[in-house]
């Protein structure tokens, strides 16, 4: 179920990357794909009626199969922070592109192609 949602979001992101001519929309599309892939990875570790992987005081009474898989969550945790770093780098590159070519639309850039 959540698999389907994330796959459709990936498809929308690919569609945005292919159709849009504005470079800012490319960054937005890449960010959408980022979020969708994170949801997919977390969904691979979900167990029905599982609990969050945190030991509490009520530990001796817990049933062994009650945790969801914590490994994908740990992977996604680092992936999100890397995502904001690379996104900020891309946005700052866009500022330079705008100063140099006076537009961020692929078709209106000055001094490119022709």
């Amino acid at each position, binding site marked *: *179920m*959540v698999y*389907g*949602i994330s796959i*459709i*979001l990936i498809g*929308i*992101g690919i*569609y*945005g990357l292919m*159709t*849009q*001519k*504005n470079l*800012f*929309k490319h*960054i*937005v*599309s890449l*960010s*959408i794909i980022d*979020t969708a892939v*994170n*949801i997919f990875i*977390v*969904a691979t*570790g*979900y167990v029905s009626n*599982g*609990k*969050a*992987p*945190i030991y509490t005081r009520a530990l001796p009474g817990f049933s062994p199969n009650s945790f*969801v898989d914590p490994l994908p*969550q740990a992977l*996604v*945790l680092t992936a*999100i*922070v890397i*995502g*904001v770093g690379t*996104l*900020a780098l891309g*946005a*700052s590159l*866009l*500022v330079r592109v*705008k100063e140099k070519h006076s*537009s*961020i*639309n692929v078709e*209106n850039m000055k001094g490119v192609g022709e």
Partner: protein
Amino acid sequence: MSALIWIAGGMMVVAAVFAVEAKRILDSVIAMSALSLISVFLFIAMRAPDVAITEAAVGAGLVTAVLLVTLFRMKGGGDE
């Protein structure tokens, strides 16, 4: 819970389509922020509170702010 996940997924798909196809870039950034905020609910539904906190702080706060500041620096950026 299942119906709530479907509703959240539908809202995410609508927000993603709007973010890709919006005429003004400002609308696109706001729609992307809304998508991140709804994904927080999905993370909580999948019992991942750490990821949910990180996504709420990063996706809805910092990424939106960074993109808006760059948009301000580009003086609106070329609208379509």
